[in-house]
């Protein structure tokens, strides 16, 4: 092997040291994934669990698992976002499984102060009706709402996360919207 000239040795070592500190592509991609999806994941989990304190833990757990398996992500099997929400879904369902063995809070009480008084009584009534309609949804329907409107996933991504076809996801989503509309109309 050709010997490195003495005058270049220090330079080479410095370059090598810098190269080690550079994050890998997976790290960079994960960092971006976190920044873009932190709030979405939290919103989805909170919507599914209806428990903000648990949502915080599950969100952290989701990113912990995703960070641990960030190199195992396969782009051929879907987008990185769908992969992340799949992890979040599993973590949330595990939490629900754990809760089945324990008596826990069913749902958080409605924060009345969340509705600004300046929006008026009509808006407040509409909001209340919508929340009541949301509360009446079955968990699977509520999950669809959380994925679509809270997390902002597209229909193909929802289909990938839940494990159903895209058409099926669209049909189910339309059915839920219809149900919510009917409930809101009746309340109005």
């Amino acid at each position, binding site marked *: 092997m050709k010997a490195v000239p003495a005058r270049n040795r220090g330079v080479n070592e410095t370059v090598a040291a810098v190269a*080690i500190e550079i994050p890998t592509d997976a790290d960079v991609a994960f960092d971006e994934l*976190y920044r873009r999806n*932190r*709030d979405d994941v*939290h*919103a989805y989990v*909170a*919507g599914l669990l*209806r428990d*903000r304190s648990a*949502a*915080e833990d599950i*969100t*952290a*757990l989701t*990113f*912990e698992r995703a*960070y*641990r398996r960030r190199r195992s992500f396969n782009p051929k099997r879907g987008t990185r976002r769908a992969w992340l929400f799949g992890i979040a879904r*599993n973590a949330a*369902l*595990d939490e*629900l*499984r754990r*809760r*089945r063995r324990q*008596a*826990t809070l*069913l*749902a958080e009480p409605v924060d009345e102060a969340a509705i600004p008084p300046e929006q008026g009584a009509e808006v407040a009534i*509409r*909001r209340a009706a*919508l*929340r009541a309609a*949301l*509360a*009446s*949804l*079955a*968990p*699977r329907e*509520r*999950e669809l709402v959380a994925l*679509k*409107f*809270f997390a902002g996933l*597209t*229909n193909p991504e929802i289909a990938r996360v839940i494990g159903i*076809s*895209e*058409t*099926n996801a*669209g*049909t189910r*989503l*339309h059915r839920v*919207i219809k149900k*919510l*509309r009917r409930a*809101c109309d009746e309340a109005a």
Partner: protein
Amino acid sequence: MRLHEREMPLDPEVERELDAIDRALAGEPVDADLAVLAELALELRSERPEPTAEIEAKLDVLAAAGFPPRASDRLGRLRRRVADASRPLRERGARRLLPALGAASVFVVAIGIGISQSGILRGGESATQTVTPQAEPGVSAAGGTAGPSGNLTHAVRHPTSTIQSHRGADTISRPQANFARSGKRAATLGDLSVGPNNRKVAQNVDLGLSTSPDDFRDAADGVLDVVRAHRGFVVRSNVSGGDPGVSGAKQGRADFTLRIPAGELSAAMGDLSDLGHVVSRSDGSIDITNRFVSTRKRIDALTAARDRLLQELGQAVTLTEQQSIRARLRIVQAQLASAHDDLARAQQRVQLVPVSVTITADSKADSGGAWTIGDAFHDAGRVLTVTAGVALVGGAALLPFALLAALGAAGRRQWVRRQRNRALDAAPGSSPSCLRDAGAVEDPAVRRSVLVGLEVRLAGAADRAEPVVGNLVEGGAGRDAAVGIALLRVVDEPAGGADPQLSGLGFGGHPAAAYPSIGGMVTQADERRRSSPKPARHRCSTGAVFVPQAGIRATKAGRARVGRGWSPKRRAAPPR
């Protein structure tokens, strides 16, 4: 493996509405007739739970730390430590080499096993060595003797034994039976011929050698040289074929019957073994001490008899008497000579060991010289053969376990998936909408029976408690006058509104397994019933009427329905 479903196109109107929702969420204008839908979508979006600043800060701290495992997750922390320790290697690309390193290590292990099993390091070619010590009749193999002398305390220690030996691999238990590698070192069995001082052991050795055709003649000549060098002699020899100068000569074979002095046997066998590959070797020994002892006793007796006869002959006075003594003397002397001959033969049998040597010319045998490239190819072939065999056997042994592990992993995955779906179905908010409309709230303190949901399979005991498909057809109300016969003659009263909708049959029943149980539900009507003497009645959308009963919660009915042996009709129903 999932099968790809055949995608059916969405209804155009549904697709249009979904598209409008997407446009509304994206802030784009929608058609006027879908404005309400867009507004609903935006309102739903506004219901999105936002993380508080505190939660955001916590998550950001965790993100900055690389989402460390929680304190309770010991496995995760250990995994993280290992990952941190191996990070420099990963950064240098060592991770990519892991599969290759793993395969190489497996290959090295397999080769090591193959070499150890092939015996190349120990000499390779296997040979059969048989050591057959034999006791003379009358001497027990265990070491005692039944002979007439009675003063022998032990005889041959090792009964007949056959030892399979590889090239040079000496597996014989006796240190004297040291088998040479590739026939280069002698198998020394010298001690076998030298027993204790008072023992007489007769030995015999059969040796099979193989040589290459080119070395056959030299080996045959070498036998004679060895015999001469060790002061032995050839009893019989037969050498045929194997002449390298004659084309088409048949395969060479040589048979020798030799006599080697017992003291030279070890050295002679070593030299003979050097002449070619030792294919087989058989060593035998016979303890003939008894034969010596009896012959000597016979000689002593005959000598004494002869002396006595000679003495009598000197004292004989008559001619007849002298002739009689001389006749007896001749007989005794003949017997004495015969006894001396026996003793001499026995001595010779002990001192000159018969050795049978067979040499065959084998084209596959090497010359017994230095390790050549041919030997290397041969050994490599053996290593590969044994390695493949070891890998095959190992794979065959591990295959069932691997299949079981794969099945277990797949089963566990399926089980976890099912549990997750069940957890979602059983999540809060999954109770019947009719009860929610009636103001029912779930009481977490009330636990469901594990049999809830299995009522149809346990039909009979579950009569009327929670009407499902299997319980629809009821014989009648019995003595209990029906407060309201809901549908299909189901007396719904004891169930306390368990399933008034019966939505599963279009107008009625539902499949039990899919229907969520109402165990643990307490209706507001229960509370009203407590404060009111008149039972409240609820009518659901299907027209089914149920009466919540004070003090009898649905959970009690749920427990009652699985208890065989008493009628829920009579005990679960409260007095009116």
